[in-house]
């Protein structure tokens, strides 16, 4: 614990840890010191000079080393001749800060006047107007009138596309460098810079494509003026017209907290329309950031043209048909559901399937989930707390593409001193920040992980870790490969002392009394609802909260499905033949021609989805569901944190939330299930599922004060991210350990003229939840490449960017060839969800595509 320092600010005493900056110390006691360049997530630079204050420090007699006292015995203060910046000065003992004196106020006022000499007066048409720090601080601190001549204002370009997502207004920029520093320090992609000096200073990007970063949208949030605006929102709406709806991003397993901004529009017939997605603060999940995929593709798919609308016969008729099929098939039914469903949907499905004695499978190619429910993270986990002494292993995952915010937070953890081990078959963006990079050949994943403890320094880092966190992905792996990888990762916990971690597991009994798990209900305080570790008896768990295994899933709620016992089928196609197949929120037919065939061979296909997928097209019965933006529910993120999302727009006519549809179908089958509200479903879920014990909509929506203070009226301080008023979520309890399996994965050996094709994940792909985002089309197009070793490309008589034909199971598919010198010459990386069905490593033939 850092030493505590006592000081006074405007006469109010305050005690803060040593190293705290004056501006933050003031913030803690509600005193606002205006800032532009300072941001609490970044080191201060003192560039804008807006935070000028008077700082007095106790005088010390140099001869005696004793404090000099006033006549009244109080310490005599020494002031600098000029004002000082509150953002660059750390607190010191006995310091007296004055932010409201005439001298300080005049300093602040003059800086604002200088900034405004050159700032356009276009607030009425500026997108930032209404949530603009410069506008607010001007109203609060500046002179009423400008002494400068309007005609002599600085003129500059006003609509400069830095990339296709972010626009720069050069006139409005006040050169605070927040965007430049964010890209450099936080995103680790220094693609913005200052060009020239003085009044000519411009923000520039020189890379190709422009503003080449997946975190670019955040620069617009922290821009204290209207200089950086996003392509989706600029000229779209005024901030004061917008209503807020708290939600959770559905694009990846991180579960970034977001806020949808909505308003009613004449264009939409007076209906509610989502205008933008903004990050919502959750320091333990996404802090105040989000990635561009979440921002620019976050909800667009729910408004896609392919959105499934009410069938002509009406929803009741469709439910009736589904009921008839299920009543007939009973246990000959197979339910297939993905992690796109909310916890409440999955639980309702589980009950329906159990009542029908039908089989249920999780639709995923990413296995090993049974290990994450037993070895996953527990309450109190926070990637932001990883640091010196902690070890993080990232195995077979390209987090930059698969879960960008985890990439961001692990980069920061490594920079704080955590040992970051990246084991991957190819170079990934995280390598740059890793302490150790372990490169293996595709197919050697398990052997590589098993060999890690024997490696000198890496073995030490794993064995002696204070906390050991392991992320495992599916880079180049299918279902069998990921399952084996998960097991080998889970085994690493047994060599580390942090591994007495599983303690005694929670009972699997459905009637498990809540008291046993969490202490007596009345002992539960509401102060820290998310922290259950401390409430558990000591013998229950000795593990550290930042220790555990995390699956880098492709859907927002695969973890929730796993916790409820959903598992993928080893050979899905074989399970479907002759059965009544009820597919929910999944598109097996679109993903894989083999599964399309299998569905055609099924007796009946019932499809429940929000989009018109290939599966929906070949289904006998179609049930249109409500999107996550139109309903309430919860997702369990990869860190096992259950988080609530709220409705942003009304449910479309003729659609219903998945759990409600399932409950109606169940009702038709004579099974009584809760379908009235997700809150009631959660109440049942938390009683029936041990892992969810103690989770309720009440505990989920408990906010807690977070640092830094973001999103209040003081937008100038942290930016326009929203404050979290609706809950930080609750982390699940651990489940019993999975049985060890002795699964072996047979390695594929390419014959002559054959290549090993492995699936890799791209951030921007043609998946159903991304492709409808029109703004991202150029980014998706750039991702549609098959990567090969440069030597292989040359041997095939190709160059980078040339068309490459991939022949798999007799089918041909064309990609542009890309170079990746970090892989072996016999491998080709095939992007998932880019048109070519590839769920596991496969052997393919490659040749130059014939020119059309």
């Amino acid at each position, binding site marked *: 614990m850092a030493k505590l320092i006592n000081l006074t600010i405007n006469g109010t005493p305050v005690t803060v840890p040593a190293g705290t900056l004056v501006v933050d110390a003031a913030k803690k006691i509600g005193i606002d010191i205006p800032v532009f360049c300072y941001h609490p997530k970044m080191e201060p630079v003192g560039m804008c000079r807006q935070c000028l204050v008077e700082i007095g420090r106790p005088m010390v007699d140099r001869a005696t080393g004793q404090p000099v006292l006033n006549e009244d015995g109080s310490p005599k203060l020494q002031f600098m001749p000029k004002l000082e910046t509150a953002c660059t000065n750390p607190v010191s003992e006995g310091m007296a800060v004055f932010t409201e004196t005439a001298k300080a106020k005049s300093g602040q006022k003059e800086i604002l006047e200088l900034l405004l000499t050159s700032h356009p007066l276009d607030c009425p048409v500026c997108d930032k107007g209404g949530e603009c720090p410069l506008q607010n601080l001007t109203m609060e601190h500046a002179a009423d009138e400008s002494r400068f001549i309007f005609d002599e204002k600085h003129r500059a370009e006003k609509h400069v596309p830095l990339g296709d997502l972010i626009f720069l207004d050069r006139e409005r920029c006040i050169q605070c460098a927040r965007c430049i520093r964010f890209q450099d320090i936080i995103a680790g992609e220094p693609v913005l*810079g200052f060009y020239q000096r003085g009044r000519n200073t411009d923000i520039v990007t020189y890379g190709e494509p422009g503003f080449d970063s997946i975190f670019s949208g955040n620069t617009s949030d922290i821009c204290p003026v209207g200089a950086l605006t996003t392509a989706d929102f600029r000229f779209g709406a005024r901030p004061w017209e917008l209503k807020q709806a708290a939600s959770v991003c559905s694009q990846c397993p991180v579960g970034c907290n977001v806020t949808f901004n909505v308003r009613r529009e004449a264009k939409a017939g007076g209906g509610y329309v989502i205008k933008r997605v903004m990050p919502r603060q959750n320091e333990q999940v996404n802090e105040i950031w989000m990635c561009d995929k979440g921002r620019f593709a976050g909800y667009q798919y729910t408004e896609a043209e392919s959105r499934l609308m009410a069938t002509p016969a009406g929803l009741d008729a469709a439910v009736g048909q589904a009921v008839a099929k299920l009543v007939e098939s009973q246990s000959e039914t197979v339910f297939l559901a993905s992690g796109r469903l909310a916890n409440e949907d999955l639980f309702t499905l589980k009950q329906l399937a159990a009542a029908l004695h039908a089989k249920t499978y999780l639709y995923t190619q990413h296995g090993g989930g049974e290990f994450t429910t037993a070895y996953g993270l527990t309450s109190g986990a926070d990637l932001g707390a990883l640091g010196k002494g902690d070890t993080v292993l990232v195995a077979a995952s390209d987090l930059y593409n698969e879960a960008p915010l985890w990439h961001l937070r692990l980069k920061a953890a490594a920079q704080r001193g955590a040992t970051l081990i990246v084991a991957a078959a190819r170079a990934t963006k995280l390598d740059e920040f890793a302490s150790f990079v372990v490169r293996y050949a595709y197919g050697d994943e398990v052997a590589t992980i098993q060999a890690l403890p024997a490696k000198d320094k890496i073995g030490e880092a794993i064995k002696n870790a204070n906390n050991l966190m392991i992320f495992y992905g599916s880079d180049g792996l299918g279902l069998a490969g990921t399952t084996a990888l998960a097991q080998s990762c889970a085994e690493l916990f047994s060599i580390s002392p942090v591994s007495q971690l599983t303690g005694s597991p929670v009972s699997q009994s459905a009637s498990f009394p809540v008291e046993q798990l969490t202490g007596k209900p009345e002992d539960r305080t509401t102060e820290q609802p998310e922290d259950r570790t401390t409430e558990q008896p000591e013998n229950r768990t000795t593990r550290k909260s930042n220790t555990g295994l995390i699956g880098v899933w492709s859907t927002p709620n695969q973890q929730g499905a796993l916790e409820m016992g959903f598992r993928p089928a080893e050979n899905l196609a074989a399970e479907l033949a002759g059965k009544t197949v009820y597919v929910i929120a999944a598109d097996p037919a679109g993903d894989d021609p083999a599964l399309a065939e299998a569905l055609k061979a099924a007796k009946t296909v019932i499809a429940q989805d929000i989009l018109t997928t290939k599966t929906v097209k070949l289904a006998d019965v179609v049930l249109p569901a409500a999107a996550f933006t139109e309903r309430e529910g919860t997702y369990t993120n990869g860190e096992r944190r259950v988080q609530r999302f709220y409705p942003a727009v009304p449910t479309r006519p003729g659609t219903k939330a998945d759990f409600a549809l399932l409950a109606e179908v169940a009702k038709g089958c004579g099974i009584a299930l809760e379908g009235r509200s997700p809150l009631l479903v959660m109440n049942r879920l938390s009683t029936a599922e041990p892992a969810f014990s103690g989770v309720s909509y009440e505990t989920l929506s408990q906010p807690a004060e977070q640092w830094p203070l973001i999103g209040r009226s003081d937008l100038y301080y942290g930016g326009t991210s929203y404050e979290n008023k609706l809950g930080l979520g609750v982390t699940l309890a651990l489940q019993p350990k999975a049985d060890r399996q002795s699964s072996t994965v047979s390695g594929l050996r390419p014959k002559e003229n054959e290549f090993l094709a492995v699936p890799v994940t791209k951030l921007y792909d043609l998946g159903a939840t991304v492709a409808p985002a029109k703004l991202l089309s150029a980014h998706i197009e750039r991702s549609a490449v098959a990567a090969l070793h440069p030597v292989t490309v040359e041997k095939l008589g190709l160059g980078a960017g040339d068309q490459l034909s991939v022949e798999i199971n007799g089918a041909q598919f064309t990609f542009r060839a890309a170079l990746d010198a970090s892989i072996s010459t016999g491998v080709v990386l095939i992007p998932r969800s880019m048109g070519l069905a590839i769920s596991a490593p496969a052997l393919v033939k490659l040749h130059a595509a014939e020119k059309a």
Partner: protein
Amino acid sequence: MSIAEKYTDEIQAIFAKYPVKRSAVMPLLYLAQRAEGYITKGAMAEIADLLELDVTEVAAIVGFYSMYHDEAAGKYRMQVCTDLSCALRGADAFLENLCQNLGVKVGETTPDGLVTVEAVMCLAGCDKAPMFQLQQGDQVSYHENMTVDKTMELVEALRKSSKQVDE
């Protein structure tokens, strides 16, 4: 030809001087400038690759210093400081008159290709404004307390001497 091919030995010598690779950015930029008279975008990208920097980081250095150039120019670059202190001592009027006398606008080159007039930020000669720095290749000279007449004389002298060299 790329800088790496053209100046292989020099680049190795520069690398040897710096324990941290990125520190070599400024000498490498001078090499690139020597090659073309200014630094092309291609050269910035190449230097970024060599030093494992982002091209924008390299460009930002070119943009900051008035002794790096991102555009072709005449034989001499006459860079007049127009920052606040110089402006107060008449730099703006000096620059305007000078341009009129030379028949060019700021940023343009005289028709004979001799002098390019540029306006730049602080050159640290505040007390001796109007002032400019004259650059030719690696050579730089300061000309302080200037008048337009004195400057035109200087231009004439430059014109003569460069003709003599050409002949």
